[in-house]
């Protein structure tokens, strides 16, 4: 009997130790090392996301309202409008609006020294696009090639390409459309003080950022989307 109690006691201790060890291994204590400002930053980020989502919801609500209002005959028109909007969002059609035009030209020093003219590298262009994409709601065109979320900027057989089309040697133009004049001003000021200008200068190029204009036109994408996943439903399905 005594032996049984002893085994019970020992097993109790063993069980306890195993459980504690399991706890320790499974949940390594993760310390929150963020300070007040890091947390505030994160909060600000979430707030921004919240506001963006709200804007999106409002726009979708507007579309629903449009559908509801246009019962019957004009429903087709509402649908066509939506399709047109979606094409616009996807960058398939030409767009006109407030924006800035940037000229990419060889730097004066490189001309003076007679440095051979070379292409803007894909890395530099990607860096530029990333830098500009800090701003929401912009549409961009590089040397006549529309840059969308699906665009690839890469090197194909030694040529820098956007959407698979070669970018010409400088000078060429980059056009950026913003939602309104105010955003264009902001983008202009941002680019003026951005370190991207230095990055271009290191590669013997100068970015001449033009003043915001109220009417800039950019081309739509010419190539069609490749759609592998979405399929059309059968009629009445």
């Amino acid at each position, binding site marked *: 009997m005594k032996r049984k109690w*002893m085994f019970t006691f020992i097993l109790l201790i063993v069980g306890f130790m195993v459980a504690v060890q399991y*706890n*320790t291994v499974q949940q390594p204590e993760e310390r929150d090392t963020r300070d007040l400002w890091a947390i505030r930053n994160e909060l600000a980020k979430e707030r921004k996301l919240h506001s963006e989502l709200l804007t999106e919801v409002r726009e979708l609500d507007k579309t629903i309202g449009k559908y509801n209002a246009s019962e019957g005959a004009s429903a087709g028109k509402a649908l066509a409008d939506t399709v047109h909007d979606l094409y616009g969002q996807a960058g398939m059609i030409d767009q006109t609006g407030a924006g800035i035009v940037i000229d990419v030209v060889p730097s004066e020093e490189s001309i003076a020294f007679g440095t051979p003219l070379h292409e803007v590298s894909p890395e530099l262009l990607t860096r530029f696009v990333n830098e500009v994409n800090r701003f929401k709601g912009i549409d961009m065109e590089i040397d006549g090639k529309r840059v969308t979320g699906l665009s690839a900027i890469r090197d194909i057989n030694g040529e820098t390409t956007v959407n698979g089309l070669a970018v010409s040697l400088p000078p060429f133009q980059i056009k950026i459309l913003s939602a309104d004049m105010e955003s264009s001003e902001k983008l202009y000021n941002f680019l003026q003080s951005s370190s991207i200008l230095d990055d271009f200068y290191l590669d013997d190029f100068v970015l001449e950022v033009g003043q915001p204009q109220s009417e800039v036109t950019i081309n739509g994408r010419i190539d069609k989307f490749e759609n592998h996943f979405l399929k059309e439903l059968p009629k009445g399905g």
Partner: protein
Amino acid sequence: MWLPILGLILGVSLGFLSDIQIPQEYGNYLSIAVLAALDTLLGGIRAHLQRVYDDQVFITGFFFNILLAAGLAFLGVHLGVDLYLAAIFAFGVRLFQNLAVIRRVLLTKWSEYRKVSTTNTSK
């Protein structure tokens, strides 16, 4: 038979419910202590089955092994030699040996029991 299992369940649930966590740097000591405890436990079961069990040997062995293993690990850390590996090796080997002996004893008992029951039914 059921009382020790109840103790084990009680110990495990106590450990989980109390949600105690020990610092990462002491995790090694606890793991080696668990190994030592398991080794002693299996040794005790083996001794019980072989009818050589002794209370004092069992209880002193349990605590002494745990302390020795943790102490060895501690010494190892301070000497810069992974001495806890030696303890893990020793306990690991003994664990398997004990398990093998327990299995054999149980097998012998079971075959004896079957022999008895078959002779009983044949009569």
